[in-house]
């Protein structure tokens, strides 16, 4: 039971990260290959508040969300000046610099990391693996509902307009700056939240947990599942989140399998497994044809 609960929590955190990146990269079309930086900022905020100032999990959770969102706003403002590949590389740089700061500044525990983070508590109940799994998937459900809501609101249409053609969106009177920054703030805020859950779940964190390879894995989940598609990103998060366990029997070839999946999916399903216009998605849409399912918005 404990094994499955720990696995469920881990996958839940991955899915949360993938969903949050999807708002930035999938919906608003802004490349972000340094998402783990915000995950780390959330985790470290939570860990420092908990271990150094005695703030409990729930308070730390809110502060982690705020810290992630604040840094996201900064990146959002940077994205005003930098586009596409320049922004992509800046986010990589942000990831490296953030990890370097966590690793070298003694306040953040340096190379030793931060240990002794308390698990969440409600009244007399201290959260074990099962409660944490429930908590993380509850947050996933909340984020999915929020995301669905945003997609159908004016906000979602504005983001997709910016993704498809920024200049045209601006010409149509969409406040590109505002929506871009908002997308970054929401996405990185959720990543900060995921970081807080991670810190209190692991009770020990170090800078290496938030490195560039984590960013790549999160991005891979979004791209594999299908940018902009919530079911797709959920699928991508679950597949790659479970992969280390599922492929345990070929553990020596795990990275090889991971890399090959990335290359093959990009080569043959460039919009992801369930992304817009992918073969699989069309097949599914054909099987469950509903009202309006045949209309493809391009």
């Amino acid at each position, binding site marked *: 039971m404990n094994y499955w609960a720990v696995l469920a929590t881990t996958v839940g955190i991955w899915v949360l990260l993938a969903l949050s990146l999807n708002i930035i990269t999938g919906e608003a079309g802004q490349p972000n290959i340094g998402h783990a930086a915000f995950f780390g900022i959330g985790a470290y905020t939570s860990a420092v508040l908990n271990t150094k100032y005695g703030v409990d999990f729930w308070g730390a959770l809110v502060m982690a969300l705020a810290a992630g969102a604040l840094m996201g706003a900064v990146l959002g403002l940077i994205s005003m000046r930098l586009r596409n590949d320049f922004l992509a590389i*800046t986010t990589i740089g942000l990831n490296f610099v953030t990890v*370097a700061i966590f690793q070298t500044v003694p306040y953040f525990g340096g190379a030793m990391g931060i240990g002794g983070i308390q698990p969440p508590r409600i009244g007399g109940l201290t959260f074990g693996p099962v409660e944490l799994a429930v908590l993380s998937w509850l947050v996933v459900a909340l984020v999915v509902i929020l995301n669905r809501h945003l997609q159908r609101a004016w906000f979602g249409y504005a983001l997709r307009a910016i993704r498809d053609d920024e200049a045209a969106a601006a010409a149509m009177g969409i406040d590109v700056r505002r929506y871009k920054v908002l997308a970054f703030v929401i996405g990185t805020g959720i990543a900060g939240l995921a970081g807080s859950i991670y810190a209190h779940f692991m009770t020990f964190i170090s800078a290496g947990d938030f490195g560039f390879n984590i960013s790549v894995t999160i991005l891979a989940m979004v791209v594999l599942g299908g940018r902009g598609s919530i079911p797709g990103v959920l699928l991508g998060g679950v597949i790659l989140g479970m992969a280390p366990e599922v492929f345990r029997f070929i553990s020596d*070839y795990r990275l*090889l399998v991971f890399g090959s999946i990335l*290359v093959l999916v990009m080569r043959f399903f*460039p919009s992801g497994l369930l992304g817009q216009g992918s073969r699989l998605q069309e097949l599914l849409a054909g099987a469950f044809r509903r009202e309006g399912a045949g209309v493809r918005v391009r």
Partner: protein
Amino acid sequence: MSVRKREFDLYVEGRYRSCTTGLALSYSLGAESTVFLQQMVNGITIGSLYSLVALGLTMVYGIMRVLDIANAGAYTLGAYLGVLAYARTHSIIIALLAGAGGAAITGYLFQRAIYTPIKKMADPIVPLVASIGLFIVMEDLFRLIAGPYTITFPVHLPLNRLTLGPVVITGTQAVILLISAFLFLLLWILLNKTKIGLAWQATAQDTETAMAMGINTRSVVAFAFILGYIFAALAGILVAIHYNAVFPTMGDIPSYKMLAIVVLGGLGNPLGAVVASIVVGLAEAFVAGYIGSFLPTDAIAFLALIILLLVRPQGLLASGGEVR
């Protein structure tokens, strides 16, 4: 993965320290300018190595608008093929040729099988993710085939250390500087004096117009990839000789640092890439030499990048990419 990278960092740092302690003598003479000059030589050497890899990346980017992280895989591939060929033949020339040949084939195959078909998709994130995947596959193949450990590259160069006044240039440093200078010259001639080089420039500026003018852009793309991968492989061999080490994850540091450098130089601009490489090499040498390591050296390049990009979003030297 990160543990081995850390080991490498420590190893490089160690070598770096021993190199600077060798200078303690001249330092004790109170010659502040000697240290300055020596750091400059070290910085330019590292910068030249960076620029060889960065040139390959920028050539590919200039034409395909693809950030090809897998290029750093060619760097490791070159080092492995080089060490293999050197062990058989004990000829540094054959080692360089073997690395270049293997990388050229790899580059051509990647371009034909992966990048050109993918590039038809408009979204630039697709080829980027594919290249990350390719790089992961390559690194893991190196580990599985050659083993996870470090192989030495014991080349005995028939060169003594050069002493120019107070500044010492080691034999390998001299070879790196010479080969780099030769390759820069070669590339300059290739790009400015040959038909294929001019075709590259035209295609980099505007692919559609170049096609309309009758340039075979397919072969230009292949040329960029082959040349880019050859440069990476040669840099890999030189680095392997410099640090006397070949290991599966040696491409980790270049793969991401080169992105920063290529952007610093203005994406798709070969001259800018060289200038940016030397600047980053010097910055790292001076920061390590004077201020000490307040941040890991990898972070310095990126910190410089972020600051510079905010001031000059188009990079150090404005590039042909400006048109877009």
